[in-house]
């Protein structure tokens, strides 16, 4: 009889309620979720930031030297085809279980997108504009900073938006070496007996983070290029 009573009181794990959205989970684990969100934010901003800093000089050089631009275009196709898990596996023997492993991988992917867009933006500056600037006595450096980069800004920002949104998505794979931002929360839900609340929370936060970055960049592009507003 005692046995029967105890077995009746036992709730099997499969029968336990496992809602997708659970306010209690979010409340109890706010610290963990916010830390993961912060890591995700840092991963994305660092990777895209470094990528942009490297992409600009590379794009300027690639425009001047035809061989370099051909090398960059074919090299970027190859890098972009390598799956992120393989990329992190390549880096793992050298940088180990550190955040650097994830950041280096993400920088490579964002660099590849950005250098292509930056190059396209610079190449799209009309030759007449460049000639007019030359006629007005602009040197190469002043022409780049005051004429070419401002005119290429819309294309630059289009590249930044694509790079940022895909970096947010890719960062989750960093969980392979323990630094995946919200990816850590995703996997923890899977490993904790398919606990749905962390999975749904992290997935939604990932999408919201990507949308927030996208919106912010679209807004910055509008503010920085007031002349292109009429054309849209």
């Amino acid at each position, binding site marked *: 009889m005692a046995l029967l009573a105890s077995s009746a009181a036992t709730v099997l794990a499969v029968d336990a309620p496992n809602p997708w959205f659970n306010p209690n989970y979010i409340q109890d684990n706010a610290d963990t979720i916010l830390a993961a969100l912060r890591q995700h934010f840092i991963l994305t901003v660092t990777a895209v930031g470094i990528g942009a800093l490297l992409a600009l000089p590379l794009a300027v050089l690639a425009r001047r030297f035809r061989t370099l631009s051909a090398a960059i275009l074919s090299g970027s196709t190859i890098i972009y*085809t390598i799956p992120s*898990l393989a990329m*992190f*596996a390549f880096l*793992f*023997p050298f940088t180990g279980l550190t955040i650097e492993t994830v950041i280096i991988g993400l920088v490579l992917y964002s660099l590849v*997108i950005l250098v292509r867009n930056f190059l396209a933006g610079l190449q799209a500056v009309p030759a007449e504009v460049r000639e007019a600037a030359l006629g007005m006595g602009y040197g190469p450096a002043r022409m780049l900073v005051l004429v070419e980069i401002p005119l290429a800004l819309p294309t630059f920002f289009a590249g930044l938006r694509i790079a940022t949104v895909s970096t947010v998505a890719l960062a989750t794979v960093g969980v*392979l070496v323990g630094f995946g931002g919200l*990816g850590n929360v995703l996997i923890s839900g899977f490993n904790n007996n398919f606990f749905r609340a962390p999975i749904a929370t992290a*997935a939604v936060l990932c999408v919201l983070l990507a949308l927030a970055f996208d919106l912010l960049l679209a807004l910055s592009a509008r503010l920085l290029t007031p002349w292109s507003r009429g054309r849209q």
Partner: protein
Amino acid sequence: MSVLRDAVVYLNDPLNWTRTNGLLDRLVEHITISAAATAAAAAIALPLAIWFGHTGRGGGFTVALSNVSRAVPTLALLIVFAVTPIGFGNRATTIALALFAIPPILTNAYVGFREVDRDIVESAGAMGMSPLQIIARVELPLAVPAIMTGLRTAAVQVVATATLAALVGGGGLGQPIVLAVAQQNDGLALAAGFLVAVLALVTEAVLVLAARLVTPGPVARRLPRRLQLRTETV
């Protein structure tokens, strides 16, 4: 470079390839899952794209689908599927991957159909071609390069995503990578990463070649369209 030597030694040991659940088994598993997923996605997306593209309907839906799918991490979707009745394992992975592969195939094929010169379609109609003839003999041949670009994008993406399945208990070549990191085995990490990268690059190359073979028209025009950078990676 002892890591490099370890990786070469690992790849050179025949037993690592031929034993049960060795690299060969994983490779076959990876290719089978990827091929099945891409084929299933094409079977769903292509008829839809042909219908949308021919009638000009569903453009908004197609664009929205491809934009939204870029913002959703594939790893997140894979894990979400794993805790639904779809579950995990190879069959579930195939279903999940097929769903990921639909947007690129659908979008590219749709755009390919819409980019067919309307004058050509109109003159085909004026020559007495039925709608089905217009689709099969006019629009489809002209849209082949775009359709092949979509298939290539989808296939490479599927091969890449299939490695992520290893993080949620799936098979394929992602498994030795996850194992290598768990065991801190640097040589294996390098070796397995190399195999996955090669598989993705070979997939890309094979499909570029296939596109060249199936594109109708004179040889000079059969060169692939300017290799566009895919905006999705996984």
